[in-house]
């Protein structure tokens, strides 16, 4: 993990000894291959978990494991490995707890089908992501959307935004923080629905 800091902005492309993928390679792969599957993964985890928050924590663990695997070699294709990890993790948990719900079983079965389906085409993803970002933006509460648009589209600084909106700069920062998190949730976690009627 030492070289993580060298590459946090995605500039570097350092490759460590051996075949290890560099952190920036892993990053590009994560954004390109894993994030578009997050919606599907979470939907699966939610059905088999006790709570939504629980599912998100398991999702984080799944990411941790696939990250470790990607550091050795970038998975190709990604989808089967991602869902295999998720599946194994649910199985492990079920074994530890010795409690298996009917739902969990049925979801594991549904997953087998889902893994075999091809993922969405990448160009479709890119186009749809942009459209979804628009939709997501429109759904944001005004107090989050305004500063976000001022920052990203008008290119204002946080200080300028604070002055225009008549709020403290800290408040602007906080609202930007909420905005970007909310947008990521809509963008990545509703992924499955983007193919719906336009």
């Amino acid at each position: 993990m030492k070289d993580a800091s060298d590459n946090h902005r995605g500039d570097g492309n350092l490759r460590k000894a051996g075949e290890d993928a560099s952190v920036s390679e892993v990053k590009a792969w994560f954004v390109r291959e894993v994030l578009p599957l997050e919606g599907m993964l979470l939907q699966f985890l939610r059905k088999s978990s006790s709570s939504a928050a629980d599912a998100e924590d398991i999702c984080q663990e799944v990411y941790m494991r696939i990250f470790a695997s990607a550091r050795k070699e970038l998975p190709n294709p990604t989808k089967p490995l991602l869902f295999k990890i998720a599946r194994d993790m649910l199985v492990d948990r079920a074994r530890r707890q010795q409690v298996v719900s009917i739902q969990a079983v049925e979801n594991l079965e549904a997953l087998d089908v889902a893994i075999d389906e091809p993922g969405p085409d990448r160009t479709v993803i890119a186009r749809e992501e942009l459209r979804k970002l628009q939709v997501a933006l429109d759904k944001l509460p005004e107090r989050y959307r305004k500063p976000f648009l001022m920052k990203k589209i008008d290119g204002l600084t946080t200080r300028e935004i604070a002055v225009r909106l008549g709020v403290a700069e800290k408040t602007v920062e906080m609202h930007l923080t909420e905005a970007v998190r909310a947008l990521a949730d809509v963008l990545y976690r509703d992924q499955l629905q983007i193919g719906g009627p336009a």
Partner: protein
Amino acid sequence: MSENAGLSIAGSKEISERAAWWLVRQHASSGWSADDQAAFESWMDESPAHLMAYWRLEAVWGRADRLSALRETSREAKQPSNARRIRSFIAFGAVGLCLLGVATAGALSYFHTEQAGAYETAIGGHKILTLADGSKIELNTDTRIRLAADGAGRKVWLDRGEAYFQIRHDAAHPFVVVAGTRQVIDVGTAFSVRRDTGRLQVALTEGRARLESTEGSTGPKSIMLVPGDVAVATREGVALVTRPIPELTDQLAWRRGLLAFDSTPLAEVAAEFNRYNRQKLVVVGADARNVEVGGHFRATNVDAFKRIARTILKLRVETHGDETVISQ
């Protein structure tokens, strides 16, 4: 959440909040000092979870730059994406319908009362009978009972299997369930009676009931049962234990088509499934027989249980015809 070796990871929500904070801080007017950079780098180094949470938000942040090109169209895209909500609504709707179906079946049987005679269920079957006095008898899998002819008093013979009785109390006409050489006499109550070869189990969930032996010579011994009591009668005698009511309710999960287990040895689990299905499970070897299982299962879905045995319990599962052998 994480039980991974030595890694203590905060919840995903906290990490995401922290990542967003770092992201915004880097783009804030207040400046980004070398100290900030160092602190950020050490946070990113702490865990890949931090890295990925940051990358995820950074990708959105970067992508938003492309929105400027579409700015004018941003209003037209106002389409709430309700697809997921509708889907989950439908899913819940389906569950609701199932429950309604069960409720309706119950209500229907309540409005027509049963004639004297024999009633049976097949393996995996389930039937609710309503008697003229409003009492209800629910038959579990592979069960046979006979109702006394009208006027012959309130009397039922349990020839085999298991039934749950909800009895309208009538002090003048006690309700009697006869099972072999024993009988249960209700004193206004709900109870289950299960008759296996050489073994009779009576579990009382409400009210009171008396368990008697009908074998004449030694005189009828009787035991008064109160809620929570489980009496197990064999040829040797009667053992009485008291169980928490929720546990008794679990034992009655069959009324909902389910089997409930809690740290139950696999051998017993298999025996329970076998009561409900023609396809029989055979657990071989002490290791496998003692594997403990918990949870709720559909009584008639052996296939699901076989998959669990294979994928979750990591046991060998081999099916030949109607017999499935489970081993370590």
